[in-house]
């Protein structure tokens, strides 16, 4: 598994996601937003968290038009794997690789805290090391994570099983109270139609070491490393 972690101006979680991927056994190389091609032999393109272009205009909007994104689109069209975390998810939505949009959190606050997620499916390259319905404990850190799409798209996502993770409480209830940011149907992450692109607001790369509070994030990177 060769993963290319793309740095945009304002990305700040690129080092952490690279560390998580290496720990899981993947080979990690860097890519730059102004590049026109992904490094040769890239299996997985990673769009890390951060604040690309200072979140100007709309979160992820300017980064989604960067030269490297044409290469990411072509990679995804060939069936290549793409992972976007937090700002990376916003970039994927803005680029059209995933449907919907991440709006301002319903309570208008930047939320930075631990958060439980329910794994919706375990038969993908991203989630193979989890099991369906498993509750994992990771982190969220965003001001614009409120997932929104039109009704038709929501119906499509739900009926095609393209919701990857939902916000839930420790017991796995995906209730309104367990929804931190107002996302439709507690959606925390979505897959593309071909299940080869995943965008998620939470940060699994924060929880890969017992030293800093837990290892529930490891499953995602280990799944990818084995894919």
């Amino acid at each position: 598994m060769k993963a290319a972690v793309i740095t945009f101006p304002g990305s700040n979680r690129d080092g952490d996601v690279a560390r998580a991927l290496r720990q899981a056994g993947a080979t990690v190389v860097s890519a730059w937003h102004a590049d026109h091609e992904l490094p040769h032999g890239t299996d997985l393109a990673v769009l890390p968290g951060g604040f690309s272009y200072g979140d100007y205009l709309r979160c992820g909007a300017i980064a989604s038009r960067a030269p490297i994104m044409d290469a990411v689109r072509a990679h995804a069209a060939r069936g290549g794997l793409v992972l976007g975390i937090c700002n990376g998810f916003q970039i994927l939505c803005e680029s059209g690789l995933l449907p919907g949009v991440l709006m301002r959190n319903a309570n208008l606050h930047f939320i930075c805290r631990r958060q439980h997620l329910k794994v919706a499916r375990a038969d993908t390259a991203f989630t193979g090391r989890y099991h369906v319905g498993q509750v994992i404990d990771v982190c969220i850190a965003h001001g614009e994570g409120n997932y929104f799409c039109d009704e038709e798209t929501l119906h499509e996502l739900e009926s095609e099983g393209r919701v990857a993770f939902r916000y839930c409480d420790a017991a796995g209830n995906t209730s309104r109270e367990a929804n931190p940011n107002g996302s439709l149907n507690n959606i925390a992450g979505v897959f593309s139609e071909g299940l080869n692109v995943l965008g998620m607001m939470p940060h699994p790369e924060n929880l890969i070491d017992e030293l800093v509070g837990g290892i529930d994030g490891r499953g995602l990177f280990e799944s990818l490393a084995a894919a």
Partner: protein
Amino acid sequence: MKARVTVTLKQGVLDPQGKAIEGGLKSLGIEGIGSVRQGKVFDIELTTTDRTKAESVLREACERLLANTVIENYRIELAE
């Protein structure tokens, strides 16, 4: 040639920022405010003087970057 592009949220899209502004105005005691929805304004200087060309340039700018048409509408006004 000068132009102004206004980007607003589509009807039916929740606007938490607009709601907060609405609450702010009401808490200032300003009477007569029904509701508030917020948006963005872009004042753009164009290099062309051809109105048809200017409109097509601005439409492309809106479609490709200035607006996210999943949730936003845009309006283009050219200065006389």
